[in-house]
């Protein structure tokens, strides 16, 4: 257990480096800056839209919109982080530390809700807990109630309801990040504490929670950004968050400038989240001293009787909520429409979804690796800061981010076209905007935070000195990265790729704005059906989204399990 600072001497000032390295450093910094600029492009465009605004909407926004929606947003964020943190940490701890019936099955089932888009979960919860849904129908049958005036039932269409829905589908982010830490380090420390006589509860509270804190906060940060950018679920549940205000300002009051200004307020919240995460990681030096320890694991504590039953139920409930309810509701509708599976439109949408999501996953992971590698080679706060700031797109509502990108790309296309017309006498038309490439670009920007965060957590868990050792034994930085770091980071890279793939399959709002003619993904297919108020007609496509997103999740989960049991 060495704090990383002690292992890594402070970097030399640039002017004291040998000329070759100085040049390389400059090249790396320049490349990082270029990537960061490309990623930040739509955000910058939005800021410029906001700045050009007259501000005439502000009296109204300040008086009637922002205070309320900021409070609602913060309250929602607080509840969702409490919900996801408690579910994610508890389940991760139960799965890692104890043995009870169906533990292995549940260990990967806990990841399933990540495949369910929040807008579908909101719809499913709405139906499930509605007056005519199974829960209230059963209650009425049980107690002989007739009308809704006979009894009280909590309203899912509320801020609290939205927090429940979002927690149910977003907790896997915390579960996944936390479980890895418990697996990699928790048990070895915990076992030491246990041999010294500490009770499991005390070990959990005093040792494991502090060790896992950075991972929990990293997971919660992802959850919070997903919550911030969500429009589908909150709109359906009638919760007026900042994102909702962005849309109503833009669409109903015709003020894109005002919308961009609210988006800027949201970015302040994101900065706060990112800073908090950074702050929480400040003392993180808990990496295992030797990589081999990662594999050494004593047996789990076997639970029996009511304890086993309680653990089983505690782990099963989140799966039922985040995955069971959506599948039950959508499955009922889908069964009546199985013939849709053979429609070419749906099949094309499926293929497009898989292609775009794969391309986005590869691109996003590559960009994240480049940024992190730059931060590794040039150990300067500025480079790391650039890498972090590049991930801000994740928290913006998809349509708003998409608009920023649309403006930038269309400007680029039309400039190129104008030059080509002037010089060559031919029109190049729209090169990038209105292509699937624009969709991939947008999704890469949106989900870079996922890839960057996941891989960075993996990187930070590795002992920093193994890279230094490889380098001191004569490896070039590139060779050390290839033969030492990349193999050890494979699980993190795979996880990052899968998360980006899953989120891209679920992505709706940027895709629908930027896509070309005749290009549908599963998500846009669902929306086309659902926007007339008939989500039922999109149920088959909706289930297909979940299945498509699920396949890599299960593969990954199994791969990680193998890792765990070997």
């Amino acid at each position, binding site marked *: 257990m060495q704090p990383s600072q002690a292992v890594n001497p402070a970097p030399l000032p640039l002017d004291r480096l040998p000329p070759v390295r100085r040049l390389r450093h400059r090249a790396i910094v320049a490349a990082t800056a270029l990537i960061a600029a490309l990623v930040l492009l739509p955000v910058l465009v939005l800021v410029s839209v906001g700045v050009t605004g007259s501000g005439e909407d502000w009296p*109204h926004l300040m*008086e*009637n919109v922002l205070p309320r929606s900021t409070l609602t947003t913060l309250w929602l964020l607080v509840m969702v982080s409490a919900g996801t943190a408690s579910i994610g940490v508890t389940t991760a701890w139960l799965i890692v530390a104890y043995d009870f019936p169906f533990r292995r099955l549940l260990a990967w089932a806990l990841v399933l809700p990540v495949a369910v888009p929040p807008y579908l979960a909101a719809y499913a919860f*709405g139906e499930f807990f*509605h*007056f*005519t849904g199974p829960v209230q129908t059963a209650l009425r049958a049980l107690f002989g109630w007739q*009308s*809704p005036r006979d009894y009280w039932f909590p*309203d899912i*269409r*509320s801020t609290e309801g939205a927090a429940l829905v979002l927690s149910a589908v977003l907790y896997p982010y915390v579960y996944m990040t936390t479980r890895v830490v418990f697996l990699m380090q928790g048990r070895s420390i915990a076992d030491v504490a246990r041999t010294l006589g500490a009770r499991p509860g005390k070990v959990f509270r005093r040792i494991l929670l502090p060790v896992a804190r950075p991972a929990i906060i990293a997971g919660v940060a992802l959850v919070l950004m997903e919550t911030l950018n969500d429009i589908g679920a909150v*709109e*359906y549940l*009638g919760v*007026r968050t900042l994102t909702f205000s962005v849309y*109503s300002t*833009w*669409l*109903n*009051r015709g003020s894109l400038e005002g919308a961009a200004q609210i988006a800027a307020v949201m970015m302040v919240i994101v900065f706060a989240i990112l800073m908090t995460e950074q702050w929480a990681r400040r003392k993180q030096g808990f990496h295992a001293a030797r990589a081999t320890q990662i594999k050494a694991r004593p047996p789990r504590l076997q639970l029996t009787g009511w304890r086993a039953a309680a653990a089983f139920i505690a782990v099963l409930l989140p799966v039922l909520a985040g995955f069971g309810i959506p599948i039950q509701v959508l499955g009922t*509708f889908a069964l*009546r*429409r199985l013939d849709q599976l053979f429609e070419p439109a749906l099949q094309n949408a499926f293929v497009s979804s898989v*292609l*775009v999501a*794969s*391309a986005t996953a*590869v*691109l996003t992971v590559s960009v994240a690796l480049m940024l992190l590698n730059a931060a590794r080679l040039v150990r300067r706060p500025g480079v790391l800061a650039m890498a972090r700031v590049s991930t801000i797109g994740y928290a913006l509502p998809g*349509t708003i981010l*998409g*608009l920023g990108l*649309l403006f930038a790309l*269309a*400007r680029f*296309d*039309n400039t190129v076209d104008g030059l080509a017309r002037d010089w060559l006498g031919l*029109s190049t*038309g*729209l090169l990038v*905007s*209105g*292509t*699937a*490439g624009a969709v*991939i670009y947008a999704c890469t920007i949106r989900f870079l935070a996922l890839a960057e965060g996941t891989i960075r957590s993996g990187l930070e868990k590795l002992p920093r000195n193994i890279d230094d050792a490889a380098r001191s034994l004569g490896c070039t930085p590139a060779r050390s990265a290839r033969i030492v770091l990349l193999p050890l980071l494979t699980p993190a890279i795979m996880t990052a790729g899968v998360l980006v793939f899953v989120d891209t399959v679920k992505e709706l*709002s940027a895709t*629908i*704005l930027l896509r*070309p*003619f*005749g*290009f549908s993904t599963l998500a846009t297919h669902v929306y*086309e*059906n659902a926007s*007339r*108020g*008939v989500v*039922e007609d999109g149920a088959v496509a909706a289930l297909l989204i979940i299945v498509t997103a699920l396949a890599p999740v299960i593969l990954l989960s199994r791969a990680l399990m193998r890792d765990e049991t070997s």
Partner: protein
Amino acid sequence: MKTLISRLACTAVLLSPFAAAPALAEDVVNIYSYRQPDLIEPVLDAFTEQTGIQTQLLFLDKGLEERIAAEGQNSPADVILTVDISRLTKAKEAGITQPVNSEEINAHIPAEFRDPEGNWFGLTQRGRVVYASKERVAEDELAYADLADPKFKGRICMRTGQHDYNIGLFAAMIAHEGAEKTEEWMTGLRDNLARKPEGNDRAQAKAIYSGECDIGLGNTYYVGLMKTNEKEPEQKEWANAMKVIFPTFENGHTHVNVSGMALARHAPNKEAAIRLMEFLASEKAQQVYAEQVFEYPVKPGVEASDVVQSFGTIKADTLPLTDIAKQRKAASEMVDRVGLDDGPQS
């Protein structure tokens, strides 16, 4: 080796989408639409059958105007299809439309449903009406003003006040009766709500069916869609549990909004686009809107569907739609100010 293959595969995947650029052939019309594909596909298919001109449809839920504006002179958009008068006027104001002067279209679409300069044309009308429980609502006639009457306390439900359909209604109210009176009315409506505004128009019908409330606000055509829903037969029950009442302003008229079309400013296939617009205005297409989508055709002489006619005769508001669209921002701000979406406060 494995990584090489995966790299090649990834490169192929990355490049493949770029191959499929939008077609700009002469016999194609490119449509940017806020209207759902399955609503207009029957009409488009009939058009292709009659003229041999293919159509390409791009459905957007938000930002259509911004996208066309950003694409500028290279935009592939020919025809814009949308609902809501405010979006039609917004398209004109954004400078993404161009005037069309077609005698054929003008002969089919009455002057009150089109822009004087020909920048947009209405195709169908939909009424914003009251869904009322057959069992629990005795009244068969209501004014919009009655929705603020305390006798309906705790009995009304609606979708979010910020939705286009409600904003349109509130804007019309402001245009008719002034901002002050409308705000007073909206406050009364807020306090009559049974619950926070939520769901879509069908959800209000469902809420009436399940007894959560007695009165809902909704568009006319949803009733037709629910009554004929074979896939989800329970929606027939929702529709049958309620009656449609045409509420009126002080002038005795009911609020209607339109769906419509416009020719894009830089339409690359202008001639084919105008032919499509003429087809959309034709009697044949108008019949499809009436029969399959349950909207009111704007062309005089084309009948609404039987289901819709069974509601009675709608007296559509005569106030120019553009006057209503002007009050939209005021209506949206009023919804925030009154806190309509927060639900009842007293």
